């Protein structure tokens, strides 16, 4: 569970999701969308609280969907159109739980993790 300025490697994150007990790994990657001449988005986080909230969400997701692993990485700072903003990945014994958990986690992140964006 991290808030970080630097980009993340999707390959590396996904490699970390492989688990002998899991038969499915589902991921979601959020990126900066090109809209109305937008050039970039500035992301700001209340770092300490955001990390705690991400950790809480991860634990809740693991319990609720019986996941084998779950991870969320959210970036902060100025991100240009097309850049990766967030990755959520969940592994579970079966795909149904992995899909559900991934969708639940990104929705919760948007609701309770103190991160804000401003268009540039």
């Amino acid at each position, binding site marked *: 569970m991290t808030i970080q300025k630097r980009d993340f490697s999707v390959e590396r994150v996904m490699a970390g999701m492989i688990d002998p007990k899991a038969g499915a790994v589902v991921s979601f990657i959020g990126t900066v969308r090109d809209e109305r001449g937008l050039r970039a988005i500035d992301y700001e986080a209340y770092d300490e609280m955001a990390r705690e909230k991400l950790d809480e969400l991860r634990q809740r997701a693991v319990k609720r969907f019986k996941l084998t692993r779950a991870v969320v990485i959210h970036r902060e700072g100025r991100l240009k159109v097309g850049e990766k903003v*967030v990755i959520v990945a969940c592994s579970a014994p079966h795909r149904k739980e992995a899909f559900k958990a991934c969708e639940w986690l990104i929705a919760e992140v948007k609701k309770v993790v103190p991160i804000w964006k401003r268009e540039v």
Partner: protein
Amino acid sequence: MKIVLRLFSVFRDVMGFREKTIDIPPGTTLEALLRELMAQYPRLKPHEASVLLAVNRDFASIKTRLEEGDEVALMPPIGGG
């Protein structure tokens, strides 16, 4: 008693600082603190209805009674992802 006030996003713009240690009377509630801040910073008023409050990195209701050393954050509605 002393508390640390942390401001995020639009609240930093409106009040002009990121973090400050302030002195408040013992037993002050978040509600009273907010009222006091609005008196000092009238530009806060339009954000009154949407402000999110946290005490020690957890969301807190306006009725929360503050304690010495608390970290209070004023935040706009969340919008990451």
